[in-house]
């Protein structure tokens, strides 16, 4: 049949390219009837090859356009007659009832009607898709040649558009003429609302309708964001959801507490996410999440945080779970968690201020209660023990309260805030805020006192671990303190007393504290503190060395006075704070010691000068103490006994000097205040204080004052109290202000003044250091560098820096650079 074809010249007459109209009509009617079969699911009787060949031939004969048009018409006809009527049969008044009537149909009826509607649409859509993919396969050649060459959408796409126009955009039979698409949207939204209200709906069914919307486009461009799902449904969905959640937020804020609100919001977020997965499309998920977050969180977070049961309530009642919920919600809408942070910070400062105020109140309460009219200094003199103790207790109480507050917030941070870094910074800042609050200048002092108290008593009987924990607490608080130099001042003062008065329980613990501070605050900070310890060690050696030296002299004197001495380096020790503040430094009057004392003093000076030549020793009588064995003569006592009484008296050095005066005095003679002052040359304030404790304090009244009153006046006369009764053999005569107590306001002002002075030096030193290195620098840069250099010690006021720069210019360390736009300075070598 094929053989010899190559050479065949006689061929069937070729058909021309024109004049095939009848042929086309015939072919088309074959194709059309086949399509009808396909639509009625009878395709298995059709030959694909034949249909393909027909379509191929039509296109080859340049009838592609005609064919394309006929197919479209055919589909249009099919959809608008057969399919549309099937869909219309599904409409029922129940469908759109939700919007139109208030009652009449139950949710259940609506749901059933809706599902029927979904099923019908799904069926129609599925059939259309299957048939069209078969048609498209048959018309493959047309798609490949005609549609491609003429830039027409493929027949499949065209048919999908027809479905959109003929079915979805067809009006419903309703009076309001709503189109099917809007009805579909409405029913889906209605069902989703049912689900939100707790009903169970057929998610799969809805999803298949959603898929249909997703595969159809708004217009012919088929742009990705022009899907019907996006343009028609999603927008409506987001809008109704927004409205729903706005109302829900209103309702919840009114009717439930913050914790419940958080839990509800979380559940809603989860539900919406789940809904996008099971019922709608994943692309909607971020959008609806945004809506829920906006309506339930972002727009409400302030109200939520401020609710009566809000953050404050949660903090106060340790609702860690709920705080965590709030944290979680807030971090969804705000990376900085600004609202939560604000509320937390506010609460910390509030609670901190409460603690501060309580401390101030506690330290003032006893002062104001018994003697409301008395001023600071006198109060101190008259109610010494009680009020000062109360103050110390207040200080320690303050420290512990602050630590407790910190523990509380640390726990919240750890458990509820997932150890969020910015929040930790905020917490720290808030603690620093109230600890360094200008309204509460005592934090440095209180922390030092807290350490002092623990060094003296608190750590007694504690294990090493517990002690360490206490020290660590102090360090934690110290971290917050801005003015480290002020703390150093107090710490030195308190340490000084502990060392000189032997009040420390354990030297090891003291040193442990120092090394902790060294780690925290650096070497510079602890340098002076460490040298204080060194002085103490050297002094011990000196004392024992001197003792041996005296013994070696061979001058055995039974009445010899034993000397224990502490030699303190003058720059290291805060001697000026040791209670002799009235006198200007250097002009301290020399105390006249009794001869026996004077002798041994000279002896030591000689001994010391042999060891270290060129050093000057200054004796600080106001800081020492003496043990005296006192014998009181036989005088009748109240209890009727009549015998000698011996007491070991522990008095201050000045007290000893005063008492020794009475040794040489006949029993009934007296000394006036002025006589005592003249004979001893003890500074007046110290003298008053010592005489108060010797003659006024009831338990240690070794002298009798005349006239008897609480105040010591320069005209008073003093007698030896022969009838002194002491209940114990050993009696300690306390001198006012011998312990580490909270400072009075006056003392504080002094301390601050001194602190400011030393700050001045620090600033000047820093400025000079910087300028020496940089030679020339603008004003602004100099200020910033100075602040940076000093940040570890304190935060200087800019004004103070300016003043110091002025003063350095006056003293010709610096000069202003002339003729520059920005103020600048030059270093003068």
């Amino acid at each position, binding site marked *: 049949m094929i*053989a010899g074809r*190559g050479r065949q010249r006689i061929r069937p007459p070729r058909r021309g390219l024109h004049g095939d109209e009848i042929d086309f009509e015939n072919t088309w009617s074959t194709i059309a009837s086949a399509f009808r079969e396909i639509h009625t699911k009878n*395709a*298995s009787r059709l030959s694909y090859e034949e249909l*393909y060949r027909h379509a191929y031939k039509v*296109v*080859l004969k340049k009838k592609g356009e005609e064919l394309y048009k006929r197919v479209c018409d055919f589909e249009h006809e099919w959809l608008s007659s057969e399919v549309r009527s099937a869909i219309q049969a599904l409409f029922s008044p129940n469908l759109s009832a939700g919007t139109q009537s208030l009652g009449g149909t139950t949710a259940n009826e609506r749901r059933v009607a809706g599902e029927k509607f979904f099923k019908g649409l799904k069926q129609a859509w599925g059939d259309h898709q299957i048939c069209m993919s078969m048609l498209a*396969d048959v018309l493959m*050649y047309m798609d490949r*040649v005609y549609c491609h060459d003429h830039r027409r959408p493929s027949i499949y796409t065209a048919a999908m558009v027809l479905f959109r126009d003929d079915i979805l955009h067809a009006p419903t039979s309703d009076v309001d003429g709503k189109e099917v698409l809007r009805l579909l949207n409405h029913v889906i939204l209605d069902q989703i609302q049912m689900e939100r209200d707790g009903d169970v709906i057929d998610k799969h069914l809805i999803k298949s309708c959603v898929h249909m919307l997703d595969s159809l486009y708004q217009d012919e461009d088929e742009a990705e964001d022009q899907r019907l799902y996006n343009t028609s449904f999603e927008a409506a969905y987001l809008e109704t959801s927004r409205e729903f959640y706005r109302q829900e937020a209103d309702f919840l804020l009114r009717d439930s507490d913050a914790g419940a609100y958080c839990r509800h919001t979380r559940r809603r977020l989860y539900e919406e996410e789940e809904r996008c997965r099971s019922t709608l499309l994943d692309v909607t998920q971020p959008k609806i999440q945004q809506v829920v977050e906006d309506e339930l969180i972002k727009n409400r977070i302030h109200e939520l945080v401020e609710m009566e049961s809000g953050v404050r309530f949660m903090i106060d009642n340790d609702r860690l779970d709920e705080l965590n919920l709030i944290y979680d919600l807030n971090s969804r809408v705000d990376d900085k968690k600004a609202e939560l942070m604000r509320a937390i910070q506010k609460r910390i400062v509030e609670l901190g201020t409460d603690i501060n105020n309580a401390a101030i109140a506690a330290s003032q309460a006893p002062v104001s209660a018994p003697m409301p009219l008395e001023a600071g200094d006198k109060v101190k003199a008259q109610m010494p023990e009680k009020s000062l103790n109360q103050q110390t207790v207040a200080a320690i109480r303050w420290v512990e309260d602050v630590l407790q507050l910190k523990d509380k917030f640390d726990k919240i941070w750890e458990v509820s805030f997932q150890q969020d870094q910015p929040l930790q910074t905020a917490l720290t800042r808030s603690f620093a805020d109230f600890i360094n609050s200008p309204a509460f200048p005592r934090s440095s002092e209180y922390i030092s006192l807290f350490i002092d108290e623990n060094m003296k008593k608190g750590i007694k009987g504690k294990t090493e671990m517990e002690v360490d924990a206490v020290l660590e607490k102090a360090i934690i608080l110290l971290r917050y303190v801005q003015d480290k130099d002020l703390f150093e001042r107090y710490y030195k003062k308190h340490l000084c007393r502990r060392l000189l008065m032997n009040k420390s329980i354990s030297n090891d613990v003291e040193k442990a504290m120092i090394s902790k501070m060294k780690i925290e605050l650096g070497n510079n900070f602890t340098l002076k503190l460490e040298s204080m310890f060194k002085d103490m060690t050297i002094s011990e050696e000196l004392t024992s060395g001197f003792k041996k030296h005296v013994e070696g002299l061979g001058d055995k004197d039974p009445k010899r006075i034993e000397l224990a001495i502490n030699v303190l380096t003058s720059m290291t020790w805060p001697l000026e704070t040791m209670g002799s503040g009235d006198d200007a430094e250097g002009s301290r009057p020399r105390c006249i010691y009794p001869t026996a004392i004077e002798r041994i003093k000279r002896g030591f000076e000689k001994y010391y000068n042999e060891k270290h030549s060129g050093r000057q020793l200054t004796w600080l009588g106001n800081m020492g103490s003496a043990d005296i064995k006192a014998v009181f003569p036989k005088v009748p006592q109240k209890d009727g006994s009549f015998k000698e009484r011996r007491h070991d008296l522990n008095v201050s050095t000045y007290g000893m000097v005063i008492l020794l005066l009475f040794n040489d005095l006949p029993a009934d003679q007296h000394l006036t205040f002025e006589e005592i002052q003249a004979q001893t040359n003890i500074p007046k304030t110290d003298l008053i204080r010592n005489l108060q404790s010797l003659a006024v304090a009831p338990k240690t009244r070794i002298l009798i004052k005349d006239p008897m009153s609480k105040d010591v006046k320069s005209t008073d006369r003093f007698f030896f109290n022969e009838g002194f009764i002491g209940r114990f053999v050993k009696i300690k005569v306390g001198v006012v202000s011998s312990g580490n107590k909270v400072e009075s306001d006056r003392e504080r002002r002094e301390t601050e003044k001194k602190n400011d002075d030393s700050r001045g030096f620090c600033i000047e030193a820093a400025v000079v250091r910087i300028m020496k290195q940089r030679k020339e620098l603008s004003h602004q840069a100099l200020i910033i560098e100075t602040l940076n250099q000093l940040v570890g010690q304190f935060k200087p006021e800019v004004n103070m820096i300016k003043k110091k720069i002025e003063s350095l210019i006056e003293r010709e360390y610096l000069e202003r650079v002339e003729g520059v736009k920005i103020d600048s300075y030059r270093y003068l070598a």
Partner: protein
Amino acid sequence: MDSPNVELLSALATLLQNGKYSDLTIVCGMKRYSVHRALVCSRSEFFDGACRNSFKESETGVIDLTEDDAEAVEHMVHYFYHLDYLNKPLSRRSSQRSSRPTSPTTSRLPTRRRTKKLNLLMVEDPLLATMAAASAARDPMTPPDEQPNHYLESIDSAKFPDTPMEQEFEEDPFETAQAEPESNVEKPYLVTHAKVYAIAEKYGISGLKSLARKKFAHQIELHFSSSELPEACQEAYETTVDSDRGLRDVIIQTFRAHPELSLRKDVELAVRETPSLAFELFRMASGLPVFS
């Protein structure tokens, strides 16, 4: 030559030969081909469409192509399994027409020169060039019986190392190697190639289409004076749409290169009968772009 390519190719040849695992039958007149859906449907949208939809074909597993040219169908099926057609004696039935070159050496040199020319022609049309490049990728699978040719070629290339065609040979060895065996001085097969081209277009087999075009272009250069030419031209112009330039450009190019063709009586007849050919020749003669 025991390369993996050869292994696959011979395996495919065996599959077609014994019809093992066949799940689809192509019928054409009296001829039945037992083929494999996996191989056929993945190459042609048409076969895929026939098998995936619930038409008669997918139920029966038989596709009747009797309406198509039997020879073209045979070549198409052959191509599915051998990636080539008319490269060796076909079945008994067609062997009478296909004769092997009597002596490879005689045809070698002229063939090569022309090959070079043809390739330049291809370059004129970027679309064709890309198609040729795509099909070149499959060319390594040239069946093993071409071994002696390779040997001789290498001798030739040693002789003329500096000729442009030599460079071409080096750049695209498979194209030349593949063009080699099909050169058939005795039989033009122009109509056959045009028909294969048409069936490849009809069923959307792009590889076969470009292969047929290449063979057609090659043969027409050799046999432009053949009496087959008019029929081949008619075939080419009537079995595809005007926008399909594959064979049309080759034909117009041939007419341009050989103006004497227009004087032939049989050619004239064909041109008269084929308006679109006539139109394009007119455009060519007028110095207008043949197709816009």
